[in-house]
């Protein structure tokens, strides 16, 4: 702990954290594998049973390797995941990576934009509410936070569709109009980025307008979490001993508030951002259904309804890996901000 070299080495911490990802992902892969095998019936009969005769089903099982010993299947699964091959869907025989590529972009852009809205609205409101505790703005902001957090997504979605979309002329369904979908070159397969790459003004406007309602619905929901979290943290740091000590050194109010109270209050927020983001990747399902958003969440629901185990296994694996990577990112960002974490 002592000595001038004592400041925890950041690169070493990051390396440790990244190495820890390997066992975490291994555990997740194993869980996904086991859960899907434990479920009654095998994937092929679940997906295609009744549609094909027994012989054809056996053929399918053999082709997909379901007739081999479990341990071999498990090994194959791990090896193929390591090769970034997440398998194919059974129902429409598509590589999972393509499914994710074509639908993940919509989910990602919806989640990221919703998050930006939540942070841009939630953090400042939380700061104001905490700084001016028990004032009229504080009460109003707290009420707003509770309402947005407590209201179900589909309810807020319907309200926005019914009362906001029409007067403003906003689209209420889909990610873009058909014209845009067909004219924009899928360079990155993320429509939001492709449309900007295409430089087509009308298409950009079209995509952004489609994004407004779903992103606001999702953003408002998360923003309630941030309002409350930031407010509570501000209340705590404003009372902190080091804030009083900074005041005793004659620092002006603004500097004390920004450098000592706000900055420190935002540390726990980073952790929660990570958790919420992970939650949202999967939780966008409701928003996507409400707004008919062509995202991965909606696709996953479709595949589950079709009992497409291959698709579910592949998509869930990818989701899990994404969540693990986000949690590592959060840890690294935390270490950058808070020196005490680096040990």
């Amino acid at each position, binding site marked *: 702990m002592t000595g*001038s070299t004592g400041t925890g080495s950041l690169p070493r911490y990051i390396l440790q954290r990244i190495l820890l990802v390997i066992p975490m992902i291994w555990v997740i892969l194993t869980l996904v594998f086991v859960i899907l095998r434990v479920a009654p019936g095998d994937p092929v009969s679940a997906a295609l049973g009744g549609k094909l005769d027994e012989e054809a089903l056996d053929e399918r099982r053999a082709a997909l390797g379901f007739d081999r010993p479990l341990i071999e299947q498990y090994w194959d699964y791990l090896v193929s995941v390591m090769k970034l091959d997440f398998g194919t869907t059974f129902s429409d025989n598509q590589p999972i990576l393509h499914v994710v590529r074509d639908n993940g972009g919509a989910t990602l852009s919806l989640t990221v934009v919703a998050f930006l809205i939540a942070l841009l609205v939630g953090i400042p409101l939380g700061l104001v509410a905490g700084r001016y505790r028990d004032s009229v703005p504080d009460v109003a902001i707290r009420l707003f936070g509770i309402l947005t957090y407590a209201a179900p997504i589909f309810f807020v979605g319907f309200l926005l569709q019914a009362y906001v979309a029409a007067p403003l002329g906003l689209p209420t369904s889909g990610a873009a109009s058909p014209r845009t979908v067909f004219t924009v070159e899928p360079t990155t397969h993320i429509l939001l980025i492709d449309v900007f790459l295409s430089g087509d003004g009308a298409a950009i406007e079209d995509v952004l307008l489609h994004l407004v309602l779903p992103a606001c619905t999702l953003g408002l929901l998360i923003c309630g979490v941030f309002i409350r979290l930031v407010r509570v943290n501000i209340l705590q740091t404003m009372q902190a001993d*080091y804030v009083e*000590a900074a005041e005793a050194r*004659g620092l002006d109010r603004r500097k004390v508030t920004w450098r*000592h109270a706000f900055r420190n209050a935002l540390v726990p927020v980073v952790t929660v951002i990570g958790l919420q983001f992970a939650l949202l990747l999967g939780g966008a399902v409701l928003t996507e259904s409400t707004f008919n958003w062509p995202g991965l969440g909606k696709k996953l629901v479709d595949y589950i309804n079709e009992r497409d185990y291959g698709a579910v296994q592949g998509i869930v694996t990818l989701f899990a890996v994404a969540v693990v990577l986000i949690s590592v990112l959060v840890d690294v960002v935390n270490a950058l*901000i808070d020196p005490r974490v680096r040990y």
Partner: protein
Amino acid sequence: MTQPELDPVLEAEFQPDVTGDGPVISARDVRVWYGTTRGAIRAVDGVSFDLAPGETLGLVGESGCGKSTLGRGLMGLLPAGAKRDGEVRFRGEDVLTMSPRDAHRLRGSQLGMIFQEPMTRLNPLLRVSAHFEEAIRQHEPKLPKREVTQRALDALRMMGIPPTRYRSYPHEFSGGMRQRLMIALALVLRPAFIVADEPTTALDVLVEAQIVQILNDLRRDFRTSLLLITHNVGIVAEACDRVAVMYAGRIVEQGRVADVFAAPQHPYTRELLRSTISLRTTGLNFIPGSPPDLIDPPPGCRFAPRCPQAMAVCATTDPITIERPGGGQVECWAVGPTDLIPAGGTARLQQEELAVADEA
């Protein structure tokens, strides 16, 4: 900030008004209230004292007597809802009535503060260097960067912290080192007056001795005036020129340490000294009862209900501040002035009755 070098006999004779440059801090009838739903708590209730350049005044008293509140009141660091009144002059300027902007400017550069808990007083996210640099920049924005660093390193060196630790984070220091960091931070701008609020309470005895030594060196080297708040009578004897004994929001006795400790006039001072634990202590002494409710304190002397020498007059009439025999002030009817005690006032006070009445 330079001060004219005065006669070298700093520690010996403290006659604030005679030395020529007057007291650094002069407090008159200072009061601090905390508003609560039950009414105002009169935490500090009419306190007066002077502090000459280079002088250390020890402020002692039991927990809750208003010591820390007085220290914070002088610094202007009271929480929202607290009110203060009276007069605190820093070099002749009234700190309590000056504009908030001027008061802010004084804080840190002229009035410094050292706190009780060094572990939590530094921002864990900021390097030690950032603490120093923001403090120096706040008060001397035009100072070049090299100069800022130099000053910070000088302050650290004085506290025995090597320059290699300048870029470290607070959590990389031990408690004693953090307190030295806090002192260095308070000193870096050479304030003329420092409030040290129980600076050694959270530290072990060896570190405590070290910090007391550092505080002792301060007044010798920089003529810093110090208000040393403590409940440790030993530290007062060791590090202070004068001592003020506080009870229930009032200074009941003050004077030169040697005088007060050799011949305490106020019964509370006497009891406090008797309660001090030393290696020769064989039995523990304590004062029965507890301090009065400060929301609506009983009339008369606040110590009367617990005082072994209480007289009838003590429960009815506020004692008058008088000169102590041997210098300083004391407020106690047992000391005087006898000619103002009404007839029959010297009768022994029935304390049990009073305690019951108090509780009712």
